[in-house]
C-alpha cells in the first residue's frame, strides 16, 4: 500500500514511538505570538529548562496589537504588558521577533509563508489553531496548547497520536464569483464543524490544483473549523514558484535539490485514506454563514434550513434569524476584510476589483486590515489604497484586528458584521456581535450595498 502526503511527512519526523502510546514528533519550525507563549516561558524557568533550538523559532505580535497609530504606546495596559513580556522573552532567549512596527510584522500565519519560513515537507507548530494554514505548502502544521509550546521550546518535539487520514476531492471548474473561501465554507456546511475530528485532511483535485497559494492557505486555514488537526495540499509548481526567492527560502544553489525532494511528497496512487469525500465544483456558489459555528453556512440565495435541535435554535436566536429566513436584503452595518484567513494581497485585489469606482453604503463601517506590513506595502504600491479610500473604506495597519475582539477593533452588541475571518462564535467579534462569514468579494459587495446581496449577479 502506498503512502499519503501526510504519512510521508509524519513518518519522516518520528523520533520514537511510545509503547502502546503516542509518537514523538520532531518539529522543524515553531511560530509564537504574545498570547499563548508567556506561560510557556514561565514554565521553562520554573522547571529550570532552557530552549533547545531558538533559531527554529519565529515570533510576532499580532493578536493584541492596535491597527491605528501603531507608533504610539499601546493604551490597554494588559495588552502592553503582554507585548513587553514577548519582547523580553525573545531577547532573553535569542529568538527572532518581528514585533510591532517592524517591517516584517503581521499575523503569524501571513508572515511565515510570505517570508519563506514555511516550506513543503516541514512540521510546523504554533500555539494557535489556525496554524493549519501552513498545510497549503504540503507541510504538517497544527495548533498546540501552551504546555506543548513549552515542550517544543525545551525539546523541539511534541507527543501526539498519529491522526487518521481524510481526503476531500473536488474536481471541475468553479462558478463565477466563487472564491476559495466559498469552497471551504461549502465543505464545512457539508461535513459540519466536527466532520474532520481526529483526522488530518488532504485537499485534492482540480479545484485545489488550480488555486494560487493564497487561496490554498484560506482553505487549509479553516480545516481546523472542520475539527481536523490540519489540512494539506500536495506541493506542486505553484508552491515551488511561491517559495523561490523568498527571504528564508533555500538559497538558489540548493533549492532545486529541495524541489526534487518536495516533488516526491505527493500521495501515492495506491494510498488508502480512512475517510474520503468527493464534491463537485459546479455545486459550489457564493456562501454565507447564518449561525454561530462555521458549519452553519449556506448559499447566499438559500433559506436558513429547518432543524429541531435545541443548540441550533439557540444559535439562531443569538443571530436574530428564523428558520426558513432568506438573508438577502438583511441590512448589515459592519464589514471586516482581514484575518489570517483572508488578509493576503489576492484577497484585497479581489475586493478592490469589485469596489473600484463604487462607494460604500452610508450605513456601513468597512474595515480593511492587511495581514502584514508586506501586504500593506503591496496595497500601497498596487494602487489599491486609493481604491479603498475613494470608496470610503478604512484602511488600517496590520494585525488580527476584529477577528477576535482582543484589541480595540470590536463589533458592537447586536450588530451584524459580514466578516472574512474564520469564526462566527457567539461574541467572537465583541460581546453580542453577530458574525456572518463570507469571502472578500461577498464582503465587498455587502459594504457597497449596505445589505446582503447575491454576488453572482454582480460579477
Amino acid at each position: 500500500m502506498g503512502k499519503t502526503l501526510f504519512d510521508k511527512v509524519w513518518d519522516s519526523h518520528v523520533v520514537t514511538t511510545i509503547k502502546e502510546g503516542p509518537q514523538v514528533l520532531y518539529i522543524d519550525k515553531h511560530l509564537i505570538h504574545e498570547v499563548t507563549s508567556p506561560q510557556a516561558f514561565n514554565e521553562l524557568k520554573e522547571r529550570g529548562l532552557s530552549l533547545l533550538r531558538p533559531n527554529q523559532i519565529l515570533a510576532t505580535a499580532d493578536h493584541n496589537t492596535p491597527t491605528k497609530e501603531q507608533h504610539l504606546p499601546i493604551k490597554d495596559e494588559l495588552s502592553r504588558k503582554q507585548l513587553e513580556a514577548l519582547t523580553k522573552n525573545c531577547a532573553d532567549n535569542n529568538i527572532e521577533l518581528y514585533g510591532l512596527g517592524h517591517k516584517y510584522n503581521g499575523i503569524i500565519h501571513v508572515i511565515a509563508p510570505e517570508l519563506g519560513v514555511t516550506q513543503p515537507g516541514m512540521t510546523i507548530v504554533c500555539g494557535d489553531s489556525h496554524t493549519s494554514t501552513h498545510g497549503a505548502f504540503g507541510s504538517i502544521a497544527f495548533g498546540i496548547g501552551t504546555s506543548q509550546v513549552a515542550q517544543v521550546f525545551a525539546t523541539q518535539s511534541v507527543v501526539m497520536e498519529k491522526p487518521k487520514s481524510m481526503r476531500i476531492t473536488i474536481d471541475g471548474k468553479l462558478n463565477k464569483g466563487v472564491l476559495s473561501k466559498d469552497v471551504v465554507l461549502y465543505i464545512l456546511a457539508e461535513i459540519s464543524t466536527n466532520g474532520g475530528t481526529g483526522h488530518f485532511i488532504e485537499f485534492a483535485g482540480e479545484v485545489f490544483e488550480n488555486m494560487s497559494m493564497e487561496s490554498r492557505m484560506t482553505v487549509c486555514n479553516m480545516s481546523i473549523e472542520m475539527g481536523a488537526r490540519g489540512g494539506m495540499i500536495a506541493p506542486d509548481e505553484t508552491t515551488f514558484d511561491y517559495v523561490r526567492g523568498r527571504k528564508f527560502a533555500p538559497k538558489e544553489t540548493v533549492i532545486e535539490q529541495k524541489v526534487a525532494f518536495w516533488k516526491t511528497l505527493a500521495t501515492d496512487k495506491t494510498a488508502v485514506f480512512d475517510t474520503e469525500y468527493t464534491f463537485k465544483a459546479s455545486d459550489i456558489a457564493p456562501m454565507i454563514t447564518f449561525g454561530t459555528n462555521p458549519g452553519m453556512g449556506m448559499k447566499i440565495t438559500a433559506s436558513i434550513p429547518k432543524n429541531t435541535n435545541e443548540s441550533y435554535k439557540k444559535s439562531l436566536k443569538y443571530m436574530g434569524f428564523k428558520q426558513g429566513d432568506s438573508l438577502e436584503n438583511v441590512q448589515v452595518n459592519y464589514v471586516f476584510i482581514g484575518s489570517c484567513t483572508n488578509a493576503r494581497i489576492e484577497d484585497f485585489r479581489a475586493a478592490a476589483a469589485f469596489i473600484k469606482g463604487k462607494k460604500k453604503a452610508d450605513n456601513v463601517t468597512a474595515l480593511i486590515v492587511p495581514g502584514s506590513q508586506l501586504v500593506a506595502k503591496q496595497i500601497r504600491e498596487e494602487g489599491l489604497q486609493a481604491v479603498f479610500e475613494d470608496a470610503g473604506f478604512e484602511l488600517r495597519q496590520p494585525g488580527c484586528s476584529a477577528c477576535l475582539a482582543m484589541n480595540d477593533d470590536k463589533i458592537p452588541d447586536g450588530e451584524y458584521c459580514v466578516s472574512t475571518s474564520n469564526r462566527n462564535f457567539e461574541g467572537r467579534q465583541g460581546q453580542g456581535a453577530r458574525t456572518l462569514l463570507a469571502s472578500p468579494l461577498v464582503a465587498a459587495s455587502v459594504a457597497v450595498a449596505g445589505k446582503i446581496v447575491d454576488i453572482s449577479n454582480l460579477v
Partner: protein
Amino acid sequence: MEKFKTIHSRGIPLPVENIDTDQIIPARFLKATGREGFGENLFKDWRFNRDGTVNDEFVLNKDAFQGSILVAGSNFGCGSSREHAAWALGDYGFKVVVSSFFADIFKGNALNNGLLPVQVSASFLQALLKGISEDPTMSISVNLEQELITVSGLNLSEKFEINPYKKLCLLSGYDDMDYLVSILDAVKEYEEKESR
C-alpha cells in the same frame, strides 16, 4: 502535575452542543501572562448579563447544581487552541468533563492539565443529562484506573477509553514534558541523522 484520583461528585449539566473555547473563556481575558485566576472568567458571557448582573438562568448560577464534574453536549472545546480554556475549567474547580465528543486540541490541553475528558456514548450522555437535571444531588463516580464512569442512582455505568500512556501520566502525576526531557538524547540523535 497532581496525581489523578477517583472522583465522586455531583454533576453540572450543560446540554449545549459545539461549546467553543471562546465561550469557555472569551479572548478579551487572554491578556494575562500567568496561568492562575482564569476561573473567574469561565463562561463569562453566559454567567453574566450584558449589564454585569448575574444571569440566574445559567446553570453555574443555580445553587441546586454543584460539583466538580461538568456534563456537556457533543463536540465540547472546539475552536481556538487556547489552553486557557482548560486552565479556566480547572481553576473554577472542575476535575472532569463528560461529553459524547471532544475537539482534539482541547482534549490534549485538558489531559496536560490533569483535567480528565471522559467520552461517553450519546445515549449515556442523554440519560446522564436528564438524570442530573431531575435530581441534581445524584452522585457520579469517575474511576480512571478502571476507565469506568458510574451513576449508581441511575443504575448506569460505562467504560471510557484513554490512551494507556496518558492514563499512566495522570495516575502518576507525570507529564509529557517529563517524558520528552527524559528522551532528549534521542531527539538530538534524530537531528544528527537528519542533519538539521
